């Protein structure tokens, strides 16, 4: 591995705010070698399951293992794609329907690298990050989310 990227904190308590995302974008204006940014946002849906409506998702994680998984994803993505920057944030705790719980942000000189890397990262997070979503219904009951 030619570069070493420090372990960063991925988990954010509660929802990820649109203003935080706007600020993250703004911070890249000094990196004038960037030509393309790709951003993925996961938003909590108010799914109806057996007639009950999802009001929020409560996320828990095995944070010790998750930190290692996110670090591996980061290193392997930088090895695979020529990126200038990459950022990943995942909510922990309760996130209401309509709020954002996942934020993946890749930047590169040319568009294909940022676009492909972003999809690659999102798919790996969904498959490998030890995180669990508990869907909280409006009636106070709950179920455990299953990723598709």
């Amino acid at each position: 591995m030619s570069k070493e990227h420090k372990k960063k904190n991925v988990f954010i308590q509660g929802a990820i705010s649109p203003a935080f995302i706007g600020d993250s974008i703004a911070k890249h204006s000094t990196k004038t070698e960037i030509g393309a940014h790709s951003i993925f946002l996961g938003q909590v849906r108010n799914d109806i399951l057996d007639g009950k409506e999802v009001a929020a998702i409560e996320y828990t994680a095995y944070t010790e293992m998750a930190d290692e998984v996110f670090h591996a994803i980061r290193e392997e993505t930088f090895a695979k794609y020529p990126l200038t920057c990459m950022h990943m944030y995942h909510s922990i705790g309760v996130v209401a329907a309509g709020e954002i719980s996942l934020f993946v942000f890749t930047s590169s000189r040319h568009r294909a690298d940022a676009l492909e890397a972003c999809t690659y990262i999102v798919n790996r997070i969904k498959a490998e990050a030890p995180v669990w979503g508990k869907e909280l219904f409006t009636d106070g009951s709950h179920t455990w989310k299953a990723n598709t």
Partner: protein
Amino acid sequence: MTITVLMFGRIAELTGAQRQTLHDIPDTNRLQQHVTQMYPDMANLTYSIAVNTVMIRENTALTDGDTIALMPPFSGG
């Protein structure tokens, strides 16, 4: 020897615990038998196992101080 068992999601809910300390369990197969004996509904759950944060795919010997995580299918993102 002593091991720490971490439980997450549906499994933590089923067992009523997020962490348990167990003694004299030589490998992960024996751990699964023990857990299923204590909580028969565990037999119906799909889950994977990590030993010291590393996912395992077959029976693995345990040593003193190991941390074993019982993990239902991930659903982050």
